[in-house]
């Protein structure tokens, strides 16, 4: 099993969710985060006090998938989240030790 973490632009969330649903990935957890990479921030000026706001709002998606599905999921996320502009985000693949369903106690792929 792998955990996929994807950082995407907030307005792309619906597209990504739809794309994942289309390939049978039903669950995810999202967090509102801030971050930057190559995307430049913007300037805000309040009564003469200038602030460079580096951190841009992003959405972090966390999904758990069986190892054999990883490539499909990455492709789905990439296609849906891609705008071609700097700041589109990144996808991380993390090895996962175990998954347990709280309600039933099922483990492993049965719990995904």
């Amino acid at each position, binding site marked *: 099993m792998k955990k996929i973490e994807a950082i995407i632009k907030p307005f792309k969330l619906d597209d990504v969710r739809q794309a994942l649903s289309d390939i049978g990935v039903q669950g995810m957890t999202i967090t509102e985060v801030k971050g930057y990479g190559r995307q430049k921030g913007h300037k*805000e*000026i*309040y*009564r*003469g*006090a200038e*602030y460079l706001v580096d951190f841009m709002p992003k959405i972090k998606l966390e999904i758990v998938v069986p190892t054999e599905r990883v490539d499909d999921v990455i492709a789905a996320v990439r296609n849906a989240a891609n705008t071609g502009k700097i700041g589109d985000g990144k996808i991380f693949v993390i090895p996962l030790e175990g998954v347990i369903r709280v309600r039933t106690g099922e483990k492993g792929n049965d719990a995904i």
Partner: protein
Amino acid sequence: MLLPAAALAADGLDTGDTAWVIVATALVMMMTPAGLALFYGGMSRYKNLLNTLAMTFVAYCLGSIIWVIWGYTLAFGPDVGGMIGNLNNLFLNGIGVNDLTGTIPTYVFIVFQMTFAGITVALVLGSVVDRMKFSSWLVFTILWLTLVYCPVAHWVWGGGWMADMGALDFAGGNVVHINAGISGLVLALVLGKRLGYGKEAMFPSSITLTALGAALLWFGWFGFNAGSALAANGIAASAFLVTNTSAAVGALTWMVVEWKVNDRPTVLGIASGIVAGLVAITPAAGFVNMPAALVIGIVAGLIGFFSVSRLKMKFGYDDSLDAFGVHGICGIWGAVATGIFANPAITEGVSGLLYGNPRQVVVQLISIAATIAFAGVGTLVVIWITKLVTGGIRVDGDEEIQGLDSAIHGERAFEIGI
């Protein structure tokens, strides 16, 4: 204020005047806990929003009580040497329900003036948000109203030496804005800069609240300026008209200048321009015509913008919410402008530079200088006593970083994820 002559039996109570000034009083009252509280609160950092509201509220509450015990008599009681009123009317002693000040009940006049005292001291806190001990603010308020506000109010409106000299201040250029602006600056200099000032980002908690506050201030200011006619008459109407004009053009000017200089017209700038225009027209409200108000408002927008964005940076003082930058500087401009534009066609017997009386400008400058000097020294004395009584006036570094809403009040401004 058009100084009310001692009530003559022949004058009698005018119900129109009375009704208007009662309403005006309510409008000015609203300016402090609603207008100013939101205006300042929205510009404070989120972690100190409630503290700013608290300081504003208690300033008005303390003002309300002090005024009716000893404030009114010190400001408007029988004159002692042109400097202060005596204590004949302590606890409003000797003033009855049927007594008149001009054509309105004296009680109405008392409450109307009280709302001015309340908002003036509340303005001072704008220089010092985020770092003052709450107990010190309470003590400071009591002392400042007594030792600084009342004397200046007496000099200008209570039959004191500035009135005798012919200084013109219709609704509070000296008494309110210059007084508060200078005092705020002095307090800010003594308290010192906020931790991280100039390095850390200090975002306003809510421009939305500030904009709403500015709108409430504008609305209430009609009571402030037109109410100062103490009558429902042509002068009140004229003051009403020029007040709106100056506010509107002040806002547009600030917006345009900011757009040119910083590439963006900000809502904070528009709100600030409104207040700058209102401050500047305050001393002039019942004395100038509409075209003069256009000039006054435009200049207020210009100098307001440059004083908050350049002057502060240049000299490095932390006048947090620009009480000095907007109220002090634009108040000074307004007081000078009164000396230039005062027009006998509006108020009989009153004229400025443009109407053949250049001496008025000199008189205004003297009154401005005296207010600045007295407010400065007086505030230092008040601070010194406050420090003794409350053991220092600044919060601990830890509390300042934690935020005063949490450290002092144990409350959160909004129940959101922050």
